[in-house]
């Protein structure tokens, strides 16, 4: 436990720093000698990583106005985590484990039993009340339209109607849950393996086998900045180009020991159903991520998301991501290949429709 408390303190300090404008070059980029290096001299981020914290993305309503928990609250939550772990190990499912709200559950509701969920160890409790550090209220700055879309999405999720294959959310269609949550979400496969080769950082996410091959030859001068739509370019004059993708077009660069990844050129997939609409890509989405190894077992991952289609202003979250033991593997996630849920949902949808017809 002492090491966890230490982590919490480091994270808190980091959170305080991150109230700076997210895209200004970090002042803490001195090439510290403690950062491990690859054989070719880049900071070494390789290994399997996972967010194991209990900090929710958004600050829960009951903690409004509070950026941190008291020592007593931290102790209580640590006990809850231990109790939940014990209940899971005892074979309890869903609500019987003790997570009932969206904020508490890694998946909305509890419609997936423990078989699907990979909780790992009890989650790490910290004093922080939200992963979002900007805006200072710890809440996603949704536009009015996006709030409506989020309410609609929440009402539909796990409920339907499921009239065609376009009605389940992108996760249930085995497409993806989106790039903004990829590094730290994924209750049934949230592990990320980072592999580096000269000029590239590749992130392999277990869930949906999401993969990002990020070139690291971007240049700072050409980086897009939050608030501007100027596209980034690589040294040598290569620009982001004009090929839109679900995961956009990521351009990375090393800023001291920090990997900075600037991503634009996302496809518009706002017409699909998203379990969480804040993860949906649109053509105006712009994501800037910073990966900084703050100790041997922690990457401080900072993500700034800008998208006028969904948010009134950019938001930033600071997320401590833990390194798992060296023998941790990413396993094959054959989601689409074994998607029995889709035909079953659609058969259910047709049965419902037939019932409605016959009762008329």
């Amino acid at each position, binding site marked *: 436990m002492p090491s966890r408390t230490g982590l919490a303190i480091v994270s808190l300090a980091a959170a305080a720093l991150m109230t700076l404008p997210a895209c200004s070059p970090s002042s803490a980029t001195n090439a510290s000698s403690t950062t491990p290096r690859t054989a070719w001299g880049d900071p070494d981020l390789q290994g399997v990583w996972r967010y194991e914290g209990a900090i929710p993305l958004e600050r829960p309503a009951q903690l409004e106005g509070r950026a941190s928990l008291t020592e007593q609250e931290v102790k209580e939550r640590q006990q809850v985590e231990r109790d939940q772990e014990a209940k899971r190990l005892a074979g309890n499912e869903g609500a019987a484990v003790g997570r009932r709200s969206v904020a508490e559950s890694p998946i909305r509701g509890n419609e997936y039993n423990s078989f699907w969920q990979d909780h790992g160890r009890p989650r790490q409790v910290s004093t922080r009340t939200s992963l979002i550090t900007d805006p200072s209220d710890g809440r996603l700055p949704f536009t009015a339209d996006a709030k409506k879309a989020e309410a609609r999405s929440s009402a539909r999720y796990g409920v339907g109607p499921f009239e065609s294959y376009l009605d389940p959310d992108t996760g249930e*269609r085995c497409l993806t849950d989106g790039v903004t949550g990829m590094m730290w979400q994924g209750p049934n496969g949230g592990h990320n*393996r980072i592999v580096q080769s000269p000029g590239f950082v590749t992130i392999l996410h277990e869930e949906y086998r999401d993969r990002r091959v990020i*070139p690291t030859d971007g240049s700072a001068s050409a980086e897009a900045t939050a608030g501007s739509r100027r596209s980034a370019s690589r040294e040598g004059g290569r620009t982001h180009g004009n090929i839109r993708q679900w995961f956009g077009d990521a351009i990375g660069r090393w800023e001291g020991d920090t990997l900075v990844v600037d991503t634009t050129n996302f496809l518009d997939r706002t017409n699909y159903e998203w379990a969480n609409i804040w993860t949906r890509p649109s053509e105006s989405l712009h994501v800037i991520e910073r990966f900084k190894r703050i100790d041997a077992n922690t990457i401080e991952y900072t993500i700034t998301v800008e998208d006028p289609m969904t948010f009134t202003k950019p938001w930033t979250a600071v997320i401590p991501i833990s390194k798992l033991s060296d023998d941790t593997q990413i396993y094959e996630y054959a989601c*689409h290949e074994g998607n029995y849920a889709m*035909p079953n949902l659609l058969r259910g949808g*047709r049965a419902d429709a037939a019932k409605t017809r016959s009762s008329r």
Partner: protein
Amino acid sequence: MRARSRIAVTLASIAGVVVSACTTPVSTQSASYAPARTANGTPDLNGIWQALNTANYDIQAHPARPALAIVPALPRTGTPGLSRATRVDVPAPSVRALGAVGGVPAGAGVVEGDEIPYQPWALEKKKENAAHWLERDPEIKCFMPGVPRATYMPYPFQILQGTDKVLFAYEFAGTTRTIHLDKVGNSPSPSWMGWSRGRWEGDTLVVDTTDFNEDTWFDRAGNFHSDALHVVERYTPTSPYHLAYEATIEDSKVFTRPWKMRMTLYRRLDRDAQIREYKCVEFVEQLMYGQLGVIDPATGTVNK
């Protein structure tokens, strides 16, 4: 002219036999090539590679033909005296609209000796697979392509050499293989892309892959395997731009002996070459699920 062209055809078929019987491809003959090295000291295979052959249509030698899905032309029963002497194949109705785009280019094949040593029952199943290509080929459903098929699909893949893992990032269906150079435990279950352990033998990256399921194919011609499949691949740089690729296929449930495929992989040199997304799941949902819902979004058909 007629006699000459017949001679040409005969010569070509003899040449074909000679080429396919040749067990030493040109690409492995440049043993003197010293490849560039990574900072770790191993040969540098990093980059984007692609096969340039027709093995994904059929790993064995095959002539050009109008389509993968073929049906015999209907006899002209309406006009007495004009019935055809020999059978003529035409594209199946489901692929007819593709015209020349749906055709199959000829290829010399990539199988050593051009013979796949199927057990008798398995040869029958292969033929049946080929006849039911449209319904059965996992590629059509955007399923992970398996090994070694992922190597010679008409999409590039990127080799990313990390410290103790090598990633093979395939474009098709966003599939990735992790090649473990370090010691790892056994696979917990069978899988589409298998469980890959790698080692260096001289300048050759040798990848030994096991723990496959039985759901992938070798090509669009119905060549298949069981869950006893064991593949040993050898990637040998023969120039900065070429890899000699060899895959030894072993599957005692389906074949009578191990057999090999060989081909050259080419480095993609275009300045903007990169692995793009090919998230084909959304491309096949209508095909797979369109008729199952209350309504098919593509046709507006209401299913009752």
